[in-house]
């Protein structure tokens, strides 16, 4: 029955057509990816086996994750580059030939999509004359190739702007955004939304309607922005949109493929010309420096997610989780746990914070339903799992408690002392803090073996890393419980062998931050230059921006804790002089930068005057250092650039040195894990392979692995 290894072929008869319709369902054991073999079989079936004998084709893609990334990686890592290039070019030519064949095919082709349909799968669907999507929250479509450092190579950059408006296509492809069924229908990507049970049936109905001419396929024409219709000026509208889209994607240095994808989309002379451009740019990106690293990160993250950190222990996911503290971290942690279907009890000392936290969580549920990530029924059910407590007595039935209150040792000690009396003996108690050592808090407890640290990062929804650590007396069972919980809520857990101040990511990040802080001050370099340079190298946000994001009051607390180990760090008085209570960064709306909600605004010029209050005399006139810094921003000469580069190199080296110290101390023994943790936790140069790849001192050593 099954002629093909990768496809299930079935002939369906329909009332209004003499010839049957062929339903081809992608069916690979394991992952549903479009490997070369699968595409070849598809080509053979459509071009040879069924040509002329059928009334139309229905291609069913269920959870199709696009092209096989392993095969792409194999081409990338092939020793003979020239040969690999030629191979890839010929493969792409074949694929694009098939794309054009489908465009010209006389019989209708309909794609039926349910579940994920990303990358190559969506491109295959866009080649067809019509697309039918299953109307559930699980249906997600998108072209996330830019996240792997590539561009859509199966015709996506040409077919997508011909189906949906140009600015939307630019946005979706350059950001690698994934959308749900409702939005796809709105844009024009989906022609019909149907119930999942009737998917194939409705697709065949649609194919027959296309065949009889009752329904015309969506016209594949370039949907220009409305601005382009303005004569003369219209041409410049596209370049305006391009700049806006690519600039909005802030990490454009780490993901340069976004710019190339935009180039491919805008090559609008004709369809074959566009495909040729796409081929060129695809090969260019495939053999660039960033793409192999991105793909390695992709596989390494998958592996790390599945890694069993405590093989000898069987720990189950906790049944009820308690969260103490409904501040920015507490409420985000509670939301991520409750949206995975685990009941959560939330408590905060201040009823207004508790109220605000619960309102925020309800708002997040609303947003999730609006975006199509969750169905409304699911959202209400999971919202019902969140209850609040009126006092610590409310945690009596929890078997896992996470604390996210103010960073103050005595407050935390008191809290855990009281919590201990309420929860059962087997309940795990975890703290979210990284700046206070777990052993210091565990000092006063009567059962310290169930106490550990489970550190989430801000913002919890976007950063999927969770660090789990324990003090010397922590029993592995509780760490394993934390790891299982993190996995269940979709995060990537990293269990550290020992505790250390600041745990992993912050500990590596802070020396770099301090180094750039002090050196910029010394050498009179504008902080924005340093931030820009870091971003060019691939960091998601530069040191001053990161400080603003975290909050300079938190940085002050952190400095207080670690300055005893590092006498050469600036004292907290220096920092406190610069950051008064109104300029704490994102939380107060102004710090080194202005902040409006989540968006970063312009640099806050007035802070330079408090940053460096010194004066320098040059050539007879006395200038303030702040003015020197301002001047350096506009100078742009080789000297300044060299100084900036040296500062950034030094900061990166310090970060890598700290990472080596972490390995030496035995906190985390695997450089792969450290690199990946830095990439996931703070976006540290995924295009260079992590913190070791970023620093010039270590990028050639064996530590630079993924």
């Amino acid at each position, binding site marked *: 029955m099954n002629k093909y290894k990768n496809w299930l072929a079935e002939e369906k008869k329909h009332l209004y057509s003499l010839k049957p319709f062929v339903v081809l369902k992608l069916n690979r054991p394991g992952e549903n990816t479009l490997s070369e073999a699968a595409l070849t079989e598809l080509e053979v079936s459509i071009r040879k086996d069924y040509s002329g004998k059928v009334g139309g084709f229905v291609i069913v893609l269920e959870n199709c994750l696009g092209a096989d990334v392993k095969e792409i990686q194999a081409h990338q890592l092939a020793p003979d580059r020239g040969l690999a290039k030629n191979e890839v070019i010929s493969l792409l030519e074949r694929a694009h030939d098939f794309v054009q064949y489908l465009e010209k095919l006389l019989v209708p082709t309909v794609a039926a999509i349910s579940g994920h349909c990303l990358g190559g799968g969506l491109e295959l669907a866009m080649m067809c004359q019509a697309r039918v999507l299953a109307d559930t929250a699980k249906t997600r479509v998108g072209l996330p190739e830019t996240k792997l450092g590539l561009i859509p190579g199966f015709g996506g950059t040409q077919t997508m702007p011909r189906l949906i408006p140009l600015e939307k296509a630019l946005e979706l492809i350059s950001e690698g955004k994934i959308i749900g069924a409702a939005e796809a229908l709105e844009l024009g990507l989906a022609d019909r939304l149907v119930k999942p049970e009737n998917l194939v049936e409705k697709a065949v109905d649609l194919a027959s309607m296309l065949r009889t001419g009752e329904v015309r396929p969506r016209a594949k024409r370039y949907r220009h922005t409305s601005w382009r219709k303005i004569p003369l000026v219209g041409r410049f509208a596209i370049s305006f949109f391009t700049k806006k889209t690519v600039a909005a994607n802030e990490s454009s240095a780490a993901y340069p493929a976004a710019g190339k994808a935009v180039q491919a989309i805008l090559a609008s002379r004709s369809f074959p010309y566009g495909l040729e451009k796409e081929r060129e740019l695809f090969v260019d990106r495939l053999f660039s420096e960033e793409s192999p690293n991105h793909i390695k990160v992709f596989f390494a993250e998958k592996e790390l997610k599945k890694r069993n950190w405590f093989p000898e222990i069987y720990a189950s996911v906790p049944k009820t989780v308690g969260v103490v503290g409904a501040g920015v971290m507490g409420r985000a942690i509670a939301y991520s746990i409750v949206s995975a279907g685990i009941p959560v009890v939330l408590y905060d000392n201040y009823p207004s914070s*508790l*109220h605000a936290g*619960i309102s925020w969580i*309800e708002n997040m549920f609303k947003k999730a339903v609006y975006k199509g990530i969750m169905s409304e029924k699911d959202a209400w059910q999971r919202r*019902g799992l969140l209850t*609040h407590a*009126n*006092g610590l*007595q409310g945690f*009596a039935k929890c078997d896992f408690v996470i604390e996210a209150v103010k960073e103050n040792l005595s407050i935390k000690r008191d809290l855990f002392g009281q919590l201990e009396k309420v929860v059962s003996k087997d309940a795990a108690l975890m703290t979210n803090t990284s700046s206070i050592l777990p052993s210091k808090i565990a000092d006063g407890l009567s059962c310290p073996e169930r106490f550990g640290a489970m550190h989430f990062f801000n913002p919890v929804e976007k950063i999927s890393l969770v660090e789990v650590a324990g003090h010397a007396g922590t029993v592995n069972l509780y760490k394993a419980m934390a790891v299982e919980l993190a996995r269940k809520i979709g995060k990537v857990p990293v269990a550290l062998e020992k505790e250390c101040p600041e745990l992993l990511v912050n500990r590596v990040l802070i020396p770099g931050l301090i180094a750039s802080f002090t050196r910029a001050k010394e050498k009179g370099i504008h902080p924005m230059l340093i931030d820009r340079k870091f971003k060019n190298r691939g960091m998601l946000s530069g040191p001053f921006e990161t400080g603003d994001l975290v909050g300079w009051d938190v940085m002050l607390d952190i400095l207080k804790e670690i300055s005893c180990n590092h006498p050469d760090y600036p004292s907290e008085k220096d920092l406190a002089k610069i950051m008064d209570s109104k300029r704490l960064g994102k939380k107060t709306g102004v710090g080194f930068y202005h902040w409006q909600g989540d968006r970063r605004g312009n640099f806050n010029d007035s802070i330079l005057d408090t940053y460096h209050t010194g004066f320098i005399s040059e050539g007879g006139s006395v200038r303030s250092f702040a003015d020197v810094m301002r001047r350096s921003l506009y100078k742009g000469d080789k000297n300044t650039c060299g100084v900036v580069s040296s500062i950034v190199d030094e900061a990166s080296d310090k970060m890598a040195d700290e990472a080596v110290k972490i390995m030496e101390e035995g906190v985390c023994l695997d450089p792969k894990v450290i690199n990946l943790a830095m990439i996931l936790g703070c976006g540290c140069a995924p295009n260079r392979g992590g913190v070791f790849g970023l620093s010039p001192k270590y990028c050639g050593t064996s530590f630079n692995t993924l």
Partner: protein
Amino acid sequence: MSKAILFDGIRSPFLKAGTIPDLSAVTLGSHVLRHLVEKYNLRGTSPLVIGANIGNQLLHPDGSNVTRYIALASGLSQATPALTVNINCASGLEAVIQAAMRVEAGINDVVWVVGVEVMSDYLAVYNREQRGVHGQWLAASKEKKWWKKYPRLLSLWWKTKTMPHAPIWALEKGLTDPFVHLKMDQIADAIANDKEYGSSKEEQDLFALQSHQRASKARASGRLAKEILPFGKHVHDNGIRDNQTLDDLKYKTKPIYKGGTTSAGNSSQLTDGAVALLIVSEEVAQNLLTWQVDSEKERKRLPMAEISAKFSGYAGCDPARMGIGPVGAVKDVLNKMEGVSLENFDLIETNEAFASVVLAQKKLLEKEGIGYLDLDNKVNVNGGAIALGHPLAASGTRLALTCAMELQLRNLNRGLVTLCVGGGQGVALPLERRTL
């Protein structure tokens, strides 16, 4: 049991109706009672007032002594006596306490208690002006001299047509304290704004959310269905909001008074409800259990609880702060029961007249050193009046029922039922689980 003695008495002149035009029952009754109160110094005794009045309390539309009619309509024989008690909101609990008293005193060995309130059937009555005008019709029509009769009738007709038609709504009147002239929700606002035991709108909204969440869970798990007898096509309580969000409480239900915190979302609802209980002596209970209860499940569930009227607690407080009465009532109960503290009670059912009231009770109980009101594990575990509703007289009986049933289901020992009373009182009654 000690004997009761009638010591002294006094009465007012009995005047024909209409002799004094604006006479109020309160004026007349307090006139005589004040004489006795000022005459004797009764320091060191624990007094109680039992009043008797029929028509001056906004007569029930179904007649005076609605219990008698309910009893007859339920099929009880004509020989069964029936009486109605009234202590405002805690009438239901008061009925239970009095039933327990009669059983303990040996007067009756079976007492049926029924608490019922149909708040949608409250009367609207003519105000005094209207009553005055309408009352003169009969006299005018009896006038013999035609030149006096018809002008009088004409002027009365004109007055009827032009006087403002503003009836007194019994619902509004009943929910206003006549001594301090404040509505119940104004009192709740005052309690919320109090410095000692006040609470913010956020706390009240959180409490209301909790009530709805718990009631919703209880309904979904079938716990509430165990107490409910379906009435026609109505099977569930329809005041419970399953998907209640804090934003809805914040934006859809605005505070009733400007600058206040009490809103429709965090107050109890106006509801129609009825609860019936059977209170019997031990002998009768044993009898029933042995001969009349068949299924094993019922046998495990019954009897529900033991009530001791002598441990019931009463307290009074400022009518302008009605709502903190239960604090004194709980103190009274704990004083009467030796060796028992608030922590010994496994379940507490309190009437959530307003969220601010319960939060105030919690703060005051802690402040006065009586104990910690565990809102998480002990209080109103299946939701309360904010979600289910507060049919005034039926609430007390419902709290007793739900507390006793929950004690049975969870295998716990002691329960406490308490209500705040409009007018500034509090009533509390402890329950203990019994197995026979």
